[in-house]
């Protein structure tokens, strides 16, 4: 019974924790401009993140060592440092976007301008990182994030023309007033949002925090094969709501208020409040995860003690990094920069940084020195290689598409 509860909790937190500010904004933007014609990218991205999160969880569970520690050992300090800098720059940008997302959500709940909230949000974030246990962090944010199911309920309540949504799903091409390059740009952004690098580092380091071993591999499989795809359905529901309410009204999403507006149209004030609490949990939870991912990766690379399972006094450098990234993000967001713009940049540059995260994990997951008999089988490697090619194409195409389309204008 206890095990079943543990599995259920794992799946629920994977669903609730899947969506962050990047998924919220990008899916709504895409839904309001292209309907559901880009939903296939979410499916593709969910497949990729599930595959690589499982591999990185497996590396930690079998070797008992953190992914970045092994990457440094396997690829050498210089290659690992380049990898660390690329991945951490993107994770820091994502942390800024998440803090901005929390402040924007509080504005939607209270009407007070977001810049007022940045400092208190950063302070609370740091206190949570300092004091709260890992299991509590993971479960509370993940379970509250489940309130985003309001998007699914809203989609049904809106009573859309399902035939039309179905046609959009199989359309796989831009609508008449959008050009092919803009469609490709948003495909890249959506892929970057679904496969954000920090999720993989958080998943593997979280496995170490939860003290996984080889007997927990099935738990990893269940979490990623059920939790992530169901989280992906939430993403598609966000795009669906925007496609039903905003696309016909000629509203292109450029703010978080427009992302949640369709829920109000469908479910009224109660729905808006529920979904805003869900967004708060999703962005707050992702802020915790991104800050921890920065701390995990840097501490693991440097060989410092790390994690929430050790007392802060025993891992001072790890906690100093956490404090540092929160302070830097807070200062940048206090400058008044638009959090939605930061989010848009973070998903595009996440796409650029994808190979830096996924290539080393694939190398390590095939090394018997670390994984013994649990190295990837031929089927897993076949799919992983296909994804590696996709990730490389996306990474190369991201910046030119950003320039060519003037950031998807």
């Amino acid at each position, binding site marked *: 019974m206890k095990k079943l509860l543990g599995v259920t909790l794992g799946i629920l937190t994977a669903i609730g924790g899947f969506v962050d500010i990047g998924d919220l904004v990008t899916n709504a933007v895409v839904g309001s401009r292209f309907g559901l014609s880009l939903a296939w990218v979410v499916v593709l991205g969910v497949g990729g993140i599930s595959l690589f999160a499982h591999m990185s969880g497996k590396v930690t569970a079998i070797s008992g060592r953190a992914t970045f520690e092994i990457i440094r050992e396997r690829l050498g300090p210089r290659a690992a440092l380049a990898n660390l800098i690329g991945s951490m720059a993107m994770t820091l940008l994502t942390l800024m976007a998440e803090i901005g997302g929390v402040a924007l959500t509080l504005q939607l709940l209270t009407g007070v301008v977001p810049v007022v909230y940045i400092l208190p949000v950063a302070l609370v974030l740091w206190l949570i990182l300092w004091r709260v246990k890992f299991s509590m962090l993971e479960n509370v944010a993940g379970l509250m994030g489940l309130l985003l199911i309001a998007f699914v309920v809203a989609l049904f309540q809106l009573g859309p023309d399902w035939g039309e949504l179905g046609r959009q799903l199989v359309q796989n091409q831009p609508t008449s007033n959008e050009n092919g390059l803009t469609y490709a740009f948003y495909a890249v952004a959506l892929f970057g949002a679904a496969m954000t690098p920090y999720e993989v580092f958080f998943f593997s380091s979280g496995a170490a925090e939860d003290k996984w071993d080889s007997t927990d591999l099935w738990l990893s499989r269940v979490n990623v094969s059920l939790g992530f795809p169901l989280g992906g359905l939430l993403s598609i529901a966000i795009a669906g709501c925007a496609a039903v309410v905003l696309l016909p009204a000629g509203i292109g999403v450029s703010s978080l*208020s427009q992302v949640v507006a369709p829920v109000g149209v469908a479910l009224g004030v109660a729905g808006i409040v529920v979904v805003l609490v869900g967004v708060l949990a999703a962005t707050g939870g992702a802020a915790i995860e991104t800050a921890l991912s920065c701390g995990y990766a840097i501490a693991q690379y440097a060989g410092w003690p790390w994690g929430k399972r050790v007392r802060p006094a025993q891992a001072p450098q790890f906690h100093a990094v956490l404090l540092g990234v929160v302070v830097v993000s807070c200062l940048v967001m206090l400058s008044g920069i638009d959090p939605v713009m930061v989010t848009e940049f973070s998903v595009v540059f996440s796409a650029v940084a994808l190979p830096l995260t996924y290539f080393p994990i694939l190398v390590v997951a095939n090394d018997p020195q670390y994984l013994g008999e649990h190295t990837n089988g031929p089927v897993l490697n076949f799919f992983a290689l296909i994804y590696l090619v996709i990730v490389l194409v996306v990474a190369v195409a991201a910046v030119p598409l950003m320039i*060519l389309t*003037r950031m998807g204008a």
Partner: protein
Amino acid sequence: MRWPRRASDQRAALSRVTAALVAVTLFVGCGIAKDPLAVAIGDAASAGSSSALALEQHADGRLTTAAAQTMIDDARRELAGSAQRLSDLSTSGRQSSVQAEAVTVLARTVQHVHEARRSLGSADAEQAAERLRQDAGALEKLEERAERAG
């Protein structure tokens, strides 16, 4: 043409290739990207529709005051950005007349959005929403004209 053997020559060649690719991307990008005049007008139309939606949903009791205010404030910011881009654009021929008309309609929309913010929760909200819908419609037509003229 052969790829150089020495590392320093390879780096120099790589820099030249990268610079050429960036230049080509920028050059091609200017031709492919959506017309900036149409984009600025389209964004303004979207902001007008967004404000109207916020007013209507608030009047129907389906949106909290804080959320409706935020949505209108976001639209005001979007309109300000569009107005800035519109005034910065240098156009010629048929686009100039579209630009001039768009500036007039956009100024009217900004005024209507300010009124909408004040009318939130009052009996005037419905009329304010209707005015914004008309502005958005006019801007959408101008967007189409800008695309054709571009």
